[in-house]
């Protein structure tokens, strides 16, 4: 039965690698300026992790094949070099992988988190709530009206709790259920959670960031391809979590401006 296990182990290694090697499951097209660094990092890791996986399964298979249920009295042997080889191999192989991936990974991470948005980045506020996203644009004055939790009134579509009667900044704010952004323009998303934790995940943008109640977080990105992409919530937020989504609509600069005007006139 040892030989059967060896065969199954090899089959598992081959079959597990097959969908990856044949690109049956590929990441959706990257539409961000930073995403390629993440994709490269992921591909490199796939190569290293994949080889380690296949290598280990095959070595296990070979040893199980060769050394199971041998004839009584077969001489026992020790692996040449013994534990020392195992320890050195782990330190050298994995250690160098750790360092390489760690250092390279920092660069990909830094592009998202350690590079501040440019001063002219378009600021949009995103609010996550059970179970919808709303997006707010500051309007011609470039300023957001303050959020007043006690004034939030979903029935009257005052999702952000704005007080336009008393606050000038709030009067020209534009609120949308869709995140509309111009192509090739950097966007800084200011994230606000109304009730519980949520997350902002756009696969094509290679962005995932939690909304944390009480914390002012932001992410910034530049979308490089016109189109409509799904925004989904990835932080378990209650019974409607699976249905909490919105769309990212990347438009040309002209169409974006047209859209803004239409929204302002409503």
């Amino acid at each position, binding site marked *: 039965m040892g030989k059967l*296990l060896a065969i199954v182990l090899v089959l*598992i290694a081959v079959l*597990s690698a097959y969908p990856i090697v044949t690109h049956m*499951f590929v990441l*959706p097209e990257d539409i961000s300026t930073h995403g390629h660094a*993440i994709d490269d*990092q*992921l591909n490199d*890791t796939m190569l*290293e*992790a994949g080889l380690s*996986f296949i290598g*280990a399964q095959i*070595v*296990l298979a070979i*040893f*199980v094949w060769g*050394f199971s*249920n*041998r004839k009584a009295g*077969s*001489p*026992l*042997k*020790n*692996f040449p070099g*013994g*534990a020392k*080889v195992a*320890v050195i*191999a782990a330190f050298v192989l*994995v250690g160098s992988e*750790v360092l390489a*991936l*760690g250092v390279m*990974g*920092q660069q990909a*991470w830094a592009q998202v*988190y350690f590079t501040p948005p440019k001063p002219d980045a378009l600021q949009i506020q995103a609010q996550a709530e*059970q179970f919808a996203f709303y997006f707010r644009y500051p309007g011609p004055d470039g300023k957001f009206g303050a959020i007043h*939790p*006690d004034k939030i009134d*979903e029935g009257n579509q005052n999702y952000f*709790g704005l007080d336009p009667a008393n606050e000038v900044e709030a009067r020209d704010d534009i609120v949308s259920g869709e995140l509309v952004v111009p192509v090739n323009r950097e966007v800084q998303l200011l994230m606000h959670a109304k*009730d*519980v934790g949520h*997350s902002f995940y756009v*696969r094509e943008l290679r962005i*995932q960031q939690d909304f*944390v*109640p*009480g*914390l002012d977080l932001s992410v910034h990105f530049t979308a490089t391809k016109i189109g409509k992409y799904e925004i989904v919530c*990835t*932080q*378990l937020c*209650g*019974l409607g*979590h*699976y249905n909490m989504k919105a769309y990212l609509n990347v438009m040309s600069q002209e169409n974006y401006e047209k859209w803004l005007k239409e929204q302002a006139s409503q």
Partner: protein
Amino acid sequence: MQEGSVQEAHVHAPPEGFLRKYVFSLDHKVIGKQYYALALVAVFTGMILSWLMRLHMVWPNAKIPLLEMLSKNGAPGGVMTPEYYLSLLTMHGTLMVFFVLTNAPFAAFGNYFLPIQIGAEDMAFPRFNMMSFWTTFAAWVVLMLAFFIPDGPPIAGWTEYTPLSAVGKDAGPGMAWGASLWGISIAIFCVASLLGALNFIATTLDLRARGMTLMRMPLCTWAWFVTSCIALLAFAVLFPACILLILDRHAGTSFFIPSGLVISDRVQPHAGGSPLLWQHLFWFFGHPEVYIAILPSMGIVSHILINSMRKPLLSAKVVIYSMMSIGFLSYMVWGHHMFVSGMNPMSSLAFSFPTLTITIPATILTLIWLGSLYGSNIQINSASLFALGFISMFVAGGVSGFFLAQPSIDIYLHATYFVVGHFHLVMGVASLFGVFAGTYFWFPKMTGRMMSETLGKLHFWITFIGAYCIFMPFHYLGLIGNVRRYQSFVDDFMAPYMGWHKFVTIAALITGAGQFIFLFNLIYSRFKGKPAPENPWNATSLEWSIPSPPPWNNFGGRHPVVYHDPYQYGVNGSKGDFVMQDSPEQVVPASGD
């Protein structure tokens, strides 16, 4: 190396009466079996919950009449509601992590075999030990009550992230008393685990037989010892976290709830708390918990592999030091669960590095197991098949950790099925393979009867191939961005991949059904199995030097004396190719070695 101390008097009198013998027993062996039985109930409950979730995900309108009997609100007409899916998800995770993966490899086997393997008559504190089990049992009862209250179990997942879990009924179904029961249950569980961990540590340090130096302890005893040290620190942090959560829910405090939250159209009467505080406290426990689940299985598998290979590992010392480094590093990596949580991005890098580093001791262990197989003579049986399967699963689940340890990749893969595949393989399946191996190996000692090898092997093949069929596709689905914790997929982009989800569901049904073969084997062999000799596997450690099953005081009043390292295999002994730990004979290396 310091000599172990000699135990003096009997730790307790022989048990008399049904209650003392079988219910409120002080005997570590009975307590170990009680833990095992509780884990068995929990694992089958958890597995059936996963069946229900899988069925609902691919056939959302399927009617399951039994489900309506369990919850009228959760499954009107037998069709599961989205929120009930989340209830089952929460209960599945909680049962599996706490009541199965902590109880079975650590509390159950540890209780039964740690004292015997070090030559002790019982645990250091038998009454504490009994209390640990019954406290764990109480925690289980409180958790299960959530199924039977009108509101149902909580829907916030096994991590119970705040503020969702902290604000009470406004947060949705199950978040009123369901979530409170969860918090109370886990707080009780923490107390039980703390008592258990202290007992393990005291027993290991104080009750070793003469000659049983630390380095002469079997590797599974080492693993249980390291695990108890981890558990002591981890549960000591989760306990106050649960208390604070309960206070937020019932005493109007705001440890985890900031101001200005509007939930269910109500401005919440809280201010000043931090949701991230809960995440830090939870994962400070939660990550070491992964090692609480896997380390005992590493020890058990090493112990069994050596016996099956008929030769020692390349180095037991290296295994011990690797397990200790894993235990130590496990405290520095909790933040890798929080890369996208909004904590300082600099700390993500600080958490990423030790996470990647932990791969080094894990790889050393793997290479030691693999390298030791070389030139050995592996006896294939149910126990060794599961032990070998463990190595395969541990590698499969481990390599995906390489992706998730890197914050940049985690931006994309976080909260996808990639993560689900990763942790199920490495902490779930691998750990359970250790438990299965341990069961087939030690069952003869625990019951005095052998398990059926035919059924055992059948169980292995179904479980081994089935687990790969279930969890490998999860990784692939994660790569395309399939997010987790969704009860159904209404997205356009998922449509072409729903066939894979159906495949996984069918694999889960078959693999789950295979577990009933194991259950049958356990029950059948307990009563009808072939009588087991004292040492059916020609093993060397102390548990094989006493009758099967052992008498109430383990060594029948004798004080064993230990002369050797635990793994004298491949030698010319008086009984064969091994020398037992308590045999005074000299070890003669086999010729030609």
